[in-house]
């Protein structure tokens, strides 16, 4: 597993880069969220979820909303590192992660979206305050990640990155200090 820095000279936001893929995970999800053909295939496959949870039956409407939402989220991410305020944008995935001292799994989305809750998610491991590694992202139309294959896969990617870091002895500063004081 390799990592790329999202903004040159800034240490706050990183992304996983698989050696066999052209782009890192963050670049890749925004390329997909800006491609109408990818989105058409996705919403056709997940049409029942779109209809049941968001009451949208016109696929072009779902795609237009994804474009709009992706633009806003992309802009937000571009501005984050300069404010050094990533902890306000990424939130723990669940209560277990909220209580984790190190390497917690987090999600970011456009938290202030109008009309309906944003369905775009960026997933990341928090390694230190304001330092995150993006592992992927998804269009989440249902309540829990375990319910659908594509979101479950993102959960696997989060866990795999966390395990990789753990197996290489990477901890946040506090837990590292705790460990050496034991």
């Amino acid at each position, binding site marked *: *597993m*390799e*990592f*790329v*820095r*999202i*903004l*040159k000279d800034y*240490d706050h936001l*990183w*992304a996983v*880069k698989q050696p066999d893929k052209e*782009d*890192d995970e*963050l*670049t890749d999800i*925004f*390329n997909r969220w*800006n*491609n*109408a*053909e990818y989105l*058409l295939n996705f919403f056709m496959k997940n049409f029942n979820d779109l209809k049941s949870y968001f009451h949208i039956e*016109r*696929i*072009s*409407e779902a*795609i*237009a*909303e994804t*474009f*709009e939402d992706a*633009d806003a989220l*992309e*802009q937000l*991410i*571009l501005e984050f590192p300069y404010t050094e305020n990533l902890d306000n944008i990424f939130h723990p995935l669940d209560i277990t992660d909220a209580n984790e001292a190190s390497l917690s799994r987090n999600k970011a989305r456009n938290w202030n979206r109008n009309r309906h809750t944003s369905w775009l998610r960026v997933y990341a491991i928090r*390694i*230190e305050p304001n*330092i995150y*590694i993006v592992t992927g992202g998804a269009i989440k139309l249902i309540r829990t990640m375990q319910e659908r294959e594509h979101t479950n896969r993102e959960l696997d990617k989060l866990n795999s990155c966390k395990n990789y*870091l753990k197996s*290489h002895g*990477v*901890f*946040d*500063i506090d837990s*590292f200090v705790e460990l050496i004081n034991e």
Partner: protein
Amino acid sequence: MSKTLDFLKEHESQSPSRFVEMATWRKENDGWLRWSRNIALSLIDYMQSHNLSRTGLAEELGVTPQYVSKILSGKVNFSFKSVYEIENKLGISCMSVNLAE
């Protein structure tokens, strides 16, 4: 320097991220990309209402499925002539839809 940052730097990929480059390109080309995206959305409306696959749409347009994929990417800098041909063949208007607003 923290231990975690040291680790990331040691495992940093040789190829830098293209996120900023791609995001900047989208922002700089936002004006005409909106038109291109609207054409893709019009075609998707047509496909959904006529229950057509990408191949079916390609047949109606008299183009290859690969060209339909290109149009659906929402990143084609069309000529007015190409847009007219799409509109004429399908009997739709592509330039007036603006779902995002």
